[in-house]
């Protein structure tokens, strides 16, 4: 999940600065980084360039699909290191576009929070005992509630179905996560792999959700507006702390919880392409981003959680469920399109 509020000016400045510096230092070794806006700010890049006497070329992407295209273009030969979420990493490993990593070459991984230090427990980034990616930043999708209307903080996403809040719930207009959440609530151990026979039940639950919500939102700004203008009581925070921050800034008296069944979370990880020119340098880059000041800059500047400092929103005990590829994205989408259009259960 990319940062949606990327700083355009910063980006332009960075690209300019990079193009200047790269033309000045042709002779130096170059590290080619493909990542998301906000993950490689120019001042932090400059420190790395100085320390290792190299040039860093940063290319930004804004969607998973563009990232996939760029890495795929010449079998990874155009870039050395890239960042993608756990659900995406799998297909890079499948295609052999990323390389197994030697963790001992990235010593700062030792300082990562326990949640991230057991890399084998994170789905999608290991294969046959080898680790292919290092977690860098994440955001979980918790539940926002209005403290005035909701006296007891909700403990489960099931609160969104609570008839007490009918017409005051805001849910997200996105197929994949909604299906996963319902599967999770129905006790599925494999919410990313819904079986065919389970779909009807989940669709019914989603129709029930539709009947209980005020509406479904798409953009974070839109969600803030809807929440405030319609005195919503609950909101599924697809954009996590970003929405929490925006609502608090707007003066809303809200709480934010990670439900007991766990919150879906995307986790962006660094991986090295198979076309890497200098693997050691790529490892040094990953190690550098895990330094405390670099990682905490991500939190301070972008409001994204990092992997070395405990997050303010979700304590270490809360369960985060890292995104994984789903069984059939297109099926979920087509079902969801009908659900949100208002089809009744008898049509499915």
């Amino acid at each position, binding site marked *: 999940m990319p940062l949606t509020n990327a700083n355009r000016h910063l980006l332009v400045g960075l690209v300019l600065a990079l193009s200047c510096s790269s033309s000045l230092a042709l002779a130096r070794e170059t590290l080619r980084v493909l990542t998301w806006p906000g993950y490689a700010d120019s001042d932090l890049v400059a420190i790395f360039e100085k320390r290792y006497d190299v040039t860093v070329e940063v290319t930004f992407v804004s*969607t998973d699909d563009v990232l996939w295209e760029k890495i795929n273009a010449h079998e990874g030969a155009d870039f050395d290191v890239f960042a993608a979420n756990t659900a995406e990493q799998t297909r890079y490993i499948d295609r052999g576009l990323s390389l197994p990593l030697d963790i001992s070459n990235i010593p700062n991984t030792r300082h990562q929070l326990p949640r991230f230090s057991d890399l084998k427990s994170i789905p999608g980034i290991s294969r046959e005992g080898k680790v292919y990616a290092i977690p860098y930043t994440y955001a979980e999708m918790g539940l926002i509630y209005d403290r005035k209307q909701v006296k007891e903080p909700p403990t489960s996403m099931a609160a969104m179905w609570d008839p007490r809040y009918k017409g005051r719930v805001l849910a997200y207009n996105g197929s994949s996560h909604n299906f996963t959440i319902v599967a999770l609530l129905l006790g599925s151990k494999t919410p990313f792999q819904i079986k065919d026979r389970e779909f009807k039940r989940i669709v019914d639950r989603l129709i029930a959700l539709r009947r209980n919500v005020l509406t479904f939102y798409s953009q974070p700004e839109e969600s803030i507006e809807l929440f405030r203008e319609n005195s919503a009581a609950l909101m599924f925070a697809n954009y996590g702390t970003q929405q929490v921050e925006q609502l608090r800034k707007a003066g809303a008296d809200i709480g934010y919880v990670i439900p007991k069944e766990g919150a879906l979370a995307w986790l962006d990880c660094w991986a090295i392409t198979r076309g890497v020119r200098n693997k050691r340098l790529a490892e040094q880059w990953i190690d550098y981003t895990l330094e405390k000041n670099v990682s905490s800059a991500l939190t301070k500047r972008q409001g994204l959680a990092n992997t070395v400092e405990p997050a303010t929103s979700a304590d270490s005990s809360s369960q985060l469920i890292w995104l994984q590829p789903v069984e059939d994205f297109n099926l979920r989408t087509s079902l969801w399109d009908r659900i949100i259009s208002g089809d009744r259960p008898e049509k499915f």
Partner: protein
Amino acid sequence: MTGQKNSSRISFGIAFKLGVILATFGVLASGLTGYYSYTASRNLLVKTAERDLLTSAQVLGRRLSIALGEVAKDALLLAGIPVTARIAGAPDDPSGDPRKTAIADTFAALLAVHPEYFQVRLISTDNNGMELVRVDRDQDSLKRVVGVDLQEKGHYPYVFQASPLAVGQVYLSKIIINHEQGAHSGLDKPTLQVATPVESGHGRKLGLLVINVDLNGLFGLLKADLPGDFDVFLTNEWGDFLIHPDPSRTFGFDRGRRVLVQDTFERVSEIIQGQAESVLVNPGASARQSGESVAAFAKLAFGDVKARRFVILGLSQPLQNVLRETRLLGINTMQMVLGFSLLAIILSAIVSRAMTGPLNMMVRAAKRFSADHAIVDLPVTRNDEVGLLARTFRDMQTQINARLTELYESQRDVDHIARHDALTGLANRLMLYDRLEHAIAASQRSGRRIALIFIDLDRFKEINDTHGHAVGDKVLKAVSNRLKKMVREVDTVARLGGDEFVILFDSIDDPREIAIIAQKVIDGLRLPLEIDGQEYRMGASLGISVCPQDGDNATELLDKADLAMYRAKKAGGDTFRFYTSVAADEGQLRLVP
């Protein structure tokens, strides 16, 4: 030669420089005038176009408001039909309610006359916003949706936001892409929903009447009579394009990639930030990606008035179309500028020639004057500075000529005095030598002989002593006159001093001829001279030398003639002797005179 070149270059220089300066001024003046009139007209045209665009945008906005008002009226009309309220209040009847069919027919009739409507629906406010009656446009036909295909719409803004409205109020949705599955022609199309509550007779809200409007269809009607080169833009209050000549730039937010008007037309952000009601953008980037455009954007209240919702309507026109007339103007101006410039150049040439012509004339006159003191025509009749200069120059020439004439005359006198005998006016010794040397040189080239006759008067000393110098002088003058009469014009008669004369014959054929002349001279001088009424008689002794046989230089010839004369005198006078014959007669004698 060099002088000629210099002077011609100078006169060309003055004419050329003057001409260039005048021509430059002329060209510059006409060029600047042309440029400024062109720029002014161009600006005027652009300003007019901007004003026209803004007016058109505002008119378009008003027409949009009116059109939406018409939609609202349709919705209110349908909502007001009593049967509508009765259906909305009735429990759902799966067997099919004939009243619903009647209402559906009414909806269909409305859709039939309004091609810009996608959908007309009656939606219940209960049952999660269940659709009760729904007629969709499906390509060219109309389709009534019934039974299980009817959907629950309670979670859409046009239901949950319109429901609280009072009867008679109308809700306008944001303009969105309609992703509602089963919407037939309206699926994935830019759509605007117009909704109004339906009430029972007892004031209970039962449902909503919703009309889906095809945004592009609506604008197709609205902009039908705009000029063809106008581009229409519509954005929402954040600047997202809803209508754009390039459809791929509309509804970017729907695809997760916003395309904002302020990125193309920067000034529109003033409207978005509430600083302006309308802006003109000139020149702005063209929506058609081909050159610049002139554009006007105006804010238009839209939907919820309390929430100050608005849209931004924009019109643009390619700058080149606006300036098409300017191009003609530019060509005309250019032709005029070229014409005037040419005129300026010709006039400058004429003027510079007129100015430098008299100067050149004076230069030529000065040259002629310095070469041969000729006075040529000068522009003395002009009444200007050139005329004055010419007159002054002419006076100066005249004065110089007068002085020169005097100088020549006095020089001629001096010359004459130097080369002539003061008493007789005959050539003196100096001139004789001069002539003799010339004659010797000429005889050496031609081979002709020359002869010298040395004359010494006999008995002159007695006359002089007896009658005085005055008489002596008169005698000498008379002898001179007689000698001049006896010889040819070309022969030189000289007086060496005292009573000695010499006659030079610079071209003789036969020495005998000279003997005859000598005898004639002797005879002539023997005749009595009458001076102051008294007769004087004299004789003369003549000595003759002939060149080349007697010598080839003046002194030798003169000495030999003198010697021969001496011999003649010694023989008693009144006779002549050739030097040659003297030498032959007397052998060495001439060496010991």
